[in-house]
């Protein structure tokens, strides 16, 4: 028998099989409840989920934006000693004692992302936000945020997400958890984080300013590369005015590859009594394309997320615009999916939907070949959500 034949025969050998009931016994041994670390309420997880989502609902975009601020400037799963909690108490009080704020920030985020991703390969991006806080019960909150290719604007009644480059916008009624856009809330969250895992690197009060630097350990996502703030070991710097106790600055660094890299920085903060209402009004072009969930046949509403994922890939594969428009709220995304370069050529695997973090939808794992020149295999999670008027599962992100 030559070596080639021997190896062929070796490869055909399989070890003895277990009795069929063993699998049942193993499944009975799955711990109950299964530990669910990602379901806890944390900015890091919220943002890891928000990375895949965020092409549609403006409400969620604003919430995500708020969480971005939280993720960017707030502490993660760590905690201060009682000493620095006490130090921050007057900062929380004074920072919250204002009617409105105007913020300018820089973040190492990425175009097309809803802020969460720590884009170490990219430059810092400018982000600007205006937040009007209700002074009296019944006063509306208002907020506006501009970043890269998108503007989020909440006028107290509805929220609009406008993407100038794509010439499209999304509208949604409803409020948002604007507490998370509020700088006092950032400091409060730092103050309230649990005690384990935080090291006070510096506490200095001189020259009219207070400065606190905290170090926190990241939660390694191995075998995945660290991508989101909570994945990294990180430092947080809080600076405040000793006379007014108001927050003046916040910076966050992440440690990666032996380097300490700036991830987020509060460049300026203005404390204002109020912001003119015009700031929260968007003048949109007449030819704007409004995105949204279209009316669909009743049978479409009954499709589960996995079925929607399959329909979506198959429709993109055959260039079926009508079906795509029903499944994809963004008009520009429909055009993108119909582009020959972005169309699937072979669907290898569509997995079972799963929930993760605070993302209101689900994720459907997939493995699909795309394009033709050259073809490439993509595996990722399709983000789908059904919190629309029709309660239909629609595309929300996670394509190529």
């Amino acid at each position, binding site marked *: *028998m030559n*070596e080639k034949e*021997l*190896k062929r*025969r*070796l*490869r*055909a*050998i*399989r*070890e*003895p*099989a*277990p*009795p*069929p009931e*063993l*699998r049942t*016994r*193993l*499944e009975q*041994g*799955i*711990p109950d*409840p*299964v*530990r*669910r*670390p*990602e*379901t806890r309420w944390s900015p890091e997880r919220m943002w890891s989920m928000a990375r895949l989502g965020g092409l549609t609902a403006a409400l969620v975009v604003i919430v995500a934006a708020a969480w971005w601020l939280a993720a960017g400037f707030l502490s993660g799963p760590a905690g201060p000693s009682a000493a620095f909690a006490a130090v921050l108490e007057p900062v929380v009080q004074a920072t919250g004692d204002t009617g409105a704020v105007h913020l300018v920030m820089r973040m190492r985020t990425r175009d097309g992302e809803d802020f969460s991703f720590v884009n170490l390969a990219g430059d810092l991006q400018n982000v600007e936000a205006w937040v009007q806080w209700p002074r009296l019960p019944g006063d509306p909150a208002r907020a506006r945020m501009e970043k890269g290719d998108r503007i989020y604007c909440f006028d107290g009644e509805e929220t609009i997400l406008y993407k100038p480059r794509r010439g499209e916008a999304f509208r949604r009624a409803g409020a948002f958890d604007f507490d998370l856009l509020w700088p006092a809330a950032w400091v409060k969250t730092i103050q309230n984080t649990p005690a384990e895992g935080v090291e006070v690197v510096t506490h200095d009060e001189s020259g009219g300013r207070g400065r606190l630097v905290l170090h926190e350990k990241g939660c390694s*996502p*191995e*075998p*995945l590369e660290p991508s989101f703030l909570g994945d990294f070991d990180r430092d947080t710097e809080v600076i405040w005015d000793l006379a007014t106790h108001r927050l003046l600055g916040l910076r966050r660094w992440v440690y990666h590859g032996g380097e300490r890299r700036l991830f987020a920085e509060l460049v300026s903060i203005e404390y204002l009594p109020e912001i003119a209402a015009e700031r929260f009004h968007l003048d949109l072009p007449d030819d704007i394309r409004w995105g949204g969930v279209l009316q669909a046949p009743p049978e479409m509403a009954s499709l589960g997320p996995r079925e929607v994922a399959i329909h979506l890939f198959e429709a993109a594969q055959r260039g079926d615009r009508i079906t795509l428009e029903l499944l994809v709220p963004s008009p520009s995304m429909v055009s993108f999916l119909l582009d020959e370069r972005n169309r699937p050529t072979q669907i290898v*695997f569509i*997995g*079972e939907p*799963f929930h*993760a*973090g605070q993302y209101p939808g689900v994720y459907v*794992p997939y*493995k699909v070949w795309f394009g033709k020149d050259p073809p490439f*295999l993509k*595996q990722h*999670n399709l983000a789908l959500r059904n919190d629309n008027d029709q309660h239909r599962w629609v595309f929300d992100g996670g394509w190529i």
Partner: protein
Amino acid sequence: MTPRDTILVWRLRSGDREAYRDLIRSHHQGVYGYLRRLGADAFLAEDLTQETYARAWQRIETLRKSASLRSWLMTIARNEYLQSVRAGRQGTAGTEELPEMRDPGPGPEGEVVLTERDRRVRRAVAQLEGPLQEALALHYFQDLSLREVGAVLGIPAGTVKSRIHRAIGCLRKMLEEKETDDEREGTEKAIAGHS
């Protein structure tokens, strides 16, 4: 780590119960078979498979980026087996009597008809010395890469390669001797029958 494993690890870390079932479905046959290969009898192999998964649930956070899920499970299984040997647990058996696979499942392996030559190969594998047999079995029967086999056995991939090379050489030698003996025996029978 394969893309499929990457997704599975992600799901496991997020507490997706179905992912735990996937890990069982995908690998429990391999774990059980490997334990049998190491020398556990059927009852001990069942026990140790359950202990391997129980340990895996506790250690899901320790899974390193460089390890595949299969090799990670095999490493745990191997440690469980060695502990059982050290503890003097009953139920260790030689690998000479390993049965054929009872339920090969769907796929081409299920349609393989074992020829006499296949049986000879299996018997010859069982006669290999332990380290050679283990490296060979992990690579060929469990479809682990040289690097993954090295991770399970705690040795460099180069050492795995040389062990497998030696194992193949030994097998060829054993099989050639066996075929020569058979040929001689067949010839003698033919001559005896003719006369």
